[in-house]
């Protein structure tokens, strides 16, 4: 029997498949537009039991979720506004590249990094 077993990798998708996915915004988030036009997204985060315990001990109330905020910059706001639940990542990349006169590859790296970060924070899901 192998003691140090490699973790099985999750199902991986190709680059083309990933680009064809459609980002969909989480319904639990709130959007607040600043005067500069940039967007601040409010989103709930489930607290870890240790911190929830501390909050209960010192605050007296049981807190399970906490609201966090994420302020997008000009480019992030542009991509966020493009996400309408119908456009694929590939379409976002194309529009981003055209608007900012970027090479497709550079736009793809920017947009996919941003989409990945939003997904990591639970602000979007992929369809």
């Amino acid at each position, binding site marked *: 029997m192998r003691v140090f077993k490699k973790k099985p990798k999750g199902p991986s998708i190709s680059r*083309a498949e990933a680009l064809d996915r459609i980002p969909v915004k989480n319904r639990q988030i709130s959007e607040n537009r600043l005067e500069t036009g940039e967007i601040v997204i409010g989103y709930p985060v489930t607290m870890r039991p240790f911190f929830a315990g501390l909050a209960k001990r010192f605050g007296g109330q049981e807190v399970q979720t906490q609201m966090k905020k994420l302020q997008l910059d*000009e*480019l992030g706001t542009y991509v966020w506004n493009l996400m309408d639940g119908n456009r694929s990542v590939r379409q976002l990349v194309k529009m981003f590249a055209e608007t*900012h*006169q*970027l*090479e*497709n*590859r*550079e*736009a793809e*790296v*920017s947009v996919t*990094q941003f989409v990945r970060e939003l997904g990591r924070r639970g602000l979007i899901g992929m369809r």
Partner: protein
Amino acid sequence: MMSLNQWKEIAWYGIRFKIPADWQLSQIGIRYLLIEDQFGPAMEVKWTPVKGKFSHQAHLKRLASLQEKQVRKSLKPEPVSAEWETALTHFEASEFSWESDSTHGRGVILFCPTCRHASLIQFFHKDPPKHNLVASNILNSFRDHRSDDQVLWSAYDIRALVPETYELKHHRFEAGRYELDFADRAQHIILYRWAPASVLLSKQDLVQFARSVAGFNKTQPVAGNMNGCDTVEWSVSPASDWGRWLSRFIGKASYYWLGIWHLEAKNRILGVRAEGKKPLDTEVLDGICSHYESV
């Protein structure tokens, strides 16, 4: 057939060639390039200077054994095809074909007797007839040296001509920011490209942007305009004879120069930074700045 106008030039570490406009650089290393088309890897290039005698047969044999071990590719020497032979008149060439579980392709080993560089070019075939034509055109455009003591660097959307005494020390291609750092002994020349300029300059002007890039404390940046482009020039050097004399013995650079310019039509900002312990060669800097462009 695609006209050569729809092709773009790649130039890196002394070699240069043209690829179809829709192919993209996927990996860049020291004397290594991997290029992709929309379906995945399309072409791979490796090159190196050669000391002493070069044997095509020995290198093919070595390559075959390496590839079989590392990537389970079987490699077979082939006679150089007629269309590739006409494309490769500047080189001593040997052709090979290769096959792995998932794909197959053709490649060449090239040796240039003039500059004594050996190059390995492999094509990943998915659509053989069209690819053969594309491959022939790429090989036809392939060169591994120039005759003017300059080295052409062309990757993504930047293109620069740098004296061959300057060696590339490090490179960075990040979304929004490209950086190529060249050095000739203690003198460094760093080429920058930022994009999109409209966003970077939406809350600050070019002078403020220059301040965010280089914090030279002793002097002030000077804004200007050249050929319709907004520019900023900023230089620092020891003010006194004593400072100049002392600068030779200090470990870090004492002479700095930064020039940045805004290409409004292309939505880019280009920059050249030079630093050294000795006074900077303005002729070299002028030459680099005049040839540095966004394509």
